[in-house]
């Protein structure tokens, strides 16, 4: 892309967003991107840095989630417990989990330099740690990484980065959901893994930028959770290679978002046109109409990650899309995009189009089985 094209691309994104500053991405938002890579609506809105939460509220479909104050307090409390006394609890867990040698107990609080220098100080410390070959294990508390996303830099704050055995960096993610009998809620673990993958990626890019081998960041992240029903921290290793691959692909896709933009009608904008006090003045129908111009790919998983989920779900319901039945069923129904179409094929009232013969056969079989069992 040459300079002129780039300018035009950024202008187009600004046009989509309207005259408000772009919304910075945090790790949670970047992780959510990886959760549904096929959704154009989300890709475009994220690339333009649009405040999806406000948009969703304005069109009358506020997201059903948000962080509860109690959850935040609980999370912060647990994190403080894990980190207190020079990460004493974390050291115990890592000694049990990874066999961290007793002599490796260093601790550096990056925040001690003041918030404006945190990013450069993180760089300097990581550079020094990667350069020194003695492999002194050091916990870097409150580090600050950056990740370039669609032209603007997002800053990320992992919980702790541990540098340890064999000269490999490990990301430590502290979460306050319980690890009961070695098991935790899969949805929450998946979300934590996606989030940690963002940090791994950011650290790998930092190392590559400094001229070190990015593979020195382990793809195994350490997840620290309270064990069973007590408040005692316990740890587990999670392999985030899959999440990393999705994330890489999605971020590469975002830099190619201009191709997605080319398909959008000219003059399309998601500008809320806020007045002086910040109250949106654009009519909700108009905005909803603009949103419908961009194809979405709704899946039930969106309900836990995307601010626009309720809007997309409503849309999928109204047009009877097979998307709302979940990803697995949608994939099995490949080529059949409407529920009514699938029913028509099953009941034989509709002739299968080219390429639909196989799925039509299956649907008819399923229908026959159902009829017989109901008889």
């Amino acid at each position, binding site marked *: 892309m040459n300079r002129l094209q780039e300018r035009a691309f950024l202008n187009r994104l600004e046009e989509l967003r309207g005259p408000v500053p772009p919304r910075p991405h945090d790790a949670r938002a970047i992780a959510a991107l990886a959760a549904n890579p096929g959704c154009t609506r989300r890709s475009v809105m994220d690339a333009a840095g649009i405040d999806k939460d406000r948009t969703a509220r304005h069109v009358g479909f506020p997201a059903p989630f948000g962080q509860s104050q109690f959850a935040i307090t609980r999370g912060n409390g647990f994190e403080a417990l894990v980190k207190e006394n020079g990460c*004493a609890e974390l050291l115990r867990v890592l000694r049990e989990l990874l066999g961290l040698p*007793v002599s490796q107990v260093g601790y550096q609080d990056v925040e001690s330099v003041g918030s404006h220098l945190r990013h450069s100080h993180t760089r300097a410390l990581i550079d020094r740690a990667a350069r020194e070959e003695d492999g002194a294990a050091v916990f870097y508390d409150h580090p600050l990484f950056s990740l370039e996303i669609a032209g603007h830099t997002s800053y990320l704050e992992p919980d702790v980065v541990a540098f340890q055995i064999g000269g490999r960096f490990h990301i430590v993610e502290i979460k306050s959901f319980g690890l009961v009998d070695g098991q935790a809620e899969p949805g929450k673990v998946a979300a934590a893994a996606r989030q940690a993958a963002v940090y791994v990626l950011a650290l790998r890019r930092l190392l590559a930028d400094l001229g070190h081998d990015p593979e020195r960041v382990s793809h195994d992240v350490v997840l620290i959770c309270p064990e069973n029903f007590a408040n005692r921290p316990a740890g587990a290793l999670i392999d985030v290679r899959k999440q990393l691959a999705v994330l890489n692909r999605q971020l590469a896709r975002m830099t190619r978002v201009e191709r997605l933009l080319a398909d959008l009608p000219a003059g399309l904008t998601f500008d809320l046109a806020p007045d002086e006090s910040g109250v949106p003045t654009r009519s909700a129908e108009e905005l909803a109409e603009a949103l419908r111009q961009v194809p979405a790919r709704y899946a039930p998983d969106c309900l836990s990650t995307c601010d626009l989920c309720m809007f997309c779900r409503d849309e999928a319901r109204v047009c009877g899309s097979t998307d709302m039945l979940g990803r697995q069923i949608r994939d099995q129904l490949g080529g059949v995009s409407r529920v009514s179409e699938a029913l028509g094929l099953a009941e034989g009232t509709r002739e299968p189009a080219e390429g639909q013969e196989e799925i039509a056969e299956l649907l008819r079989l399923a229908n026959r089985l159902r009829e017989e069992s109901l008889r």
Partner: protein
Amino acid sequence: MSDSLDALERRIAELRAEVRRAVAARENALARSLRGDLRRAEQAWDAAVTAEAPPRQREPEIALVPIREQVHQALALLGVPTSAKLIVAVNDAFFSRELRGSQLTSLRRDEERSFRSDPYARPYYLCAALTDRLSPARGLLTDSTWPTELRVLGPLSPRVHFLTSAMRIAEHLTRLAEPPEGAMRLLSRMAQNIPGAVEGFAPADPVTAIRAAGAELEVHRAADAAQRAEVAARATSRLSDVERLFGVTAMNTLRGAC
């Protein structure tokens, strides 16, 4: 008891009425002696009421110790730079139990203000621990009378401080004839994170805890001392008195750090 109170109240009412009559009749001498009787009756009433009230749970004289004294007491026991949370825990386990975390938030700032306006007027100041960039470390309190080497931090220091505090708490427990239960719980909690100090979730034995913490401390001691000596030398040569106690602000650290 309450009978005598009732009797006293009746007597006070009678005496008041008599005083009023005496004053109305301008019998000054009689009024004066009656007033004396009234005062004595009221004092007796006061004494009876206080005797009847339940005894106060906490000793009032301990609550009178200023916050900085209580913090100093905890720091003297631990002997290393300590976070507010652990100071409160130690105070709760061994001392007055009057200290609250929120009371410590502005302590360091107040001490700095006092030192700036009138240096060395107090026998000790509660001051900051210094990081390797000579800035104040977050949330740690130290005692100004300690040598600079003890008040600076290297990368290994947080662990060394944790092990030392656990040892000091355990040593103090061995000195006490009746170790307080809260202190045993505090030690057990700390010992969980020291290899070989305690079996599972059992209460910690102070002697074993001292031995285990000492063993790990031996591993770190030399490296930590060398790192701290280097930072301390820098602090001594570069910083003014007040900066040496309370650290330099972030902008000034740019001068010579790293």
